[in-house]
């Protein structure tokens, strides 16, 4: 018991890495990934709320024009894209009120950051010769991992 640190992840990654994090959270939240062709044909009706992951940056390389990824479930659709400043933007449309859609957008954004942080930590710690001792998801959906330096 030496030190306890609390950190906020800085989400800076390429578009493929961001997309992978989005796909990773879609399923557990009841969303499915929508093929772009289907998105163009049919748009979710209802209210629309735009939010972004604060401090995020989608690196421009390996990103095509108007790159986006859309996830959908019965009550809402969320479109992820890179905004003018390079941040990861979420556009939430659906049947609920603006407040409900805003809450949903923040929840999904938080889970994307969680996925990103988890994969970054696991990748970097393994590269530094740490091994996973124990791992589980809590009832509150927090990810709990114990790692130890391999000797």
């Amino acid at each position: 018991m030496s030190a306890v640190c609390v950190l906020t992840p800085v989400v800076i990654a390429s578009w493929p890495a961001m997309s992978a994090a989005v796909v990773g959270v879609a399923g557990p939240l009841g969303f499915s990934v929508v093929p772009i062709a289907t998105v163009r044909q049919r748009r979710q009706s209802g209210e629309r709320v735009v939010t972004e992951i604060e401090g995020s940056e989608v690196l421009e390389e390996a990103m095509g024009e108007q790159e986006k990824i859309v996830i959908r479930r019965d009550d809402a659709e969320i479109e992820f894209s890179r905004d003018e400043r390079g941040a990861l933007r979420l556009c939430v449309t659906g049947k609920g009120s603006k407040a409900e859609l805003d809450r949903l957008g923040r929840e999904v954004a938080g889970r994307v950051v969680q996925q990103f942080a988890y994969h970054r930590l696991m990748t970097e710690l393994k590269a530094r010769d740490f091994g996973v001792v124990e791992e589980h998801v809590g009832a509150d959906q927090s990810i709990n991992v114990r790692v130890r330096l391999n000797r």
Partner: protein
Amino acid sequence: MEQPEFEITIAPDGKVRVHVTGVSGERCLEYADMIREIVGREESRDLTREYYAPDGSVRIGVQQQIHVREPPGV
């Protein structure tokens, strides 16, 4: 021999909490710095008792009690 261990909790909103154990002194700070470089912005850092233990040394406490008795007949 020290063996560093991290207990990591990543909340649903993305906030990361890391408990560094198994190391003391300056080594603990080095590992906390490493975590910050990997994750991003550090909001807080609390050092616990083990941090202040000298690296690799053993503490010995000595207690001495002196009893003074009056000689008989005084």
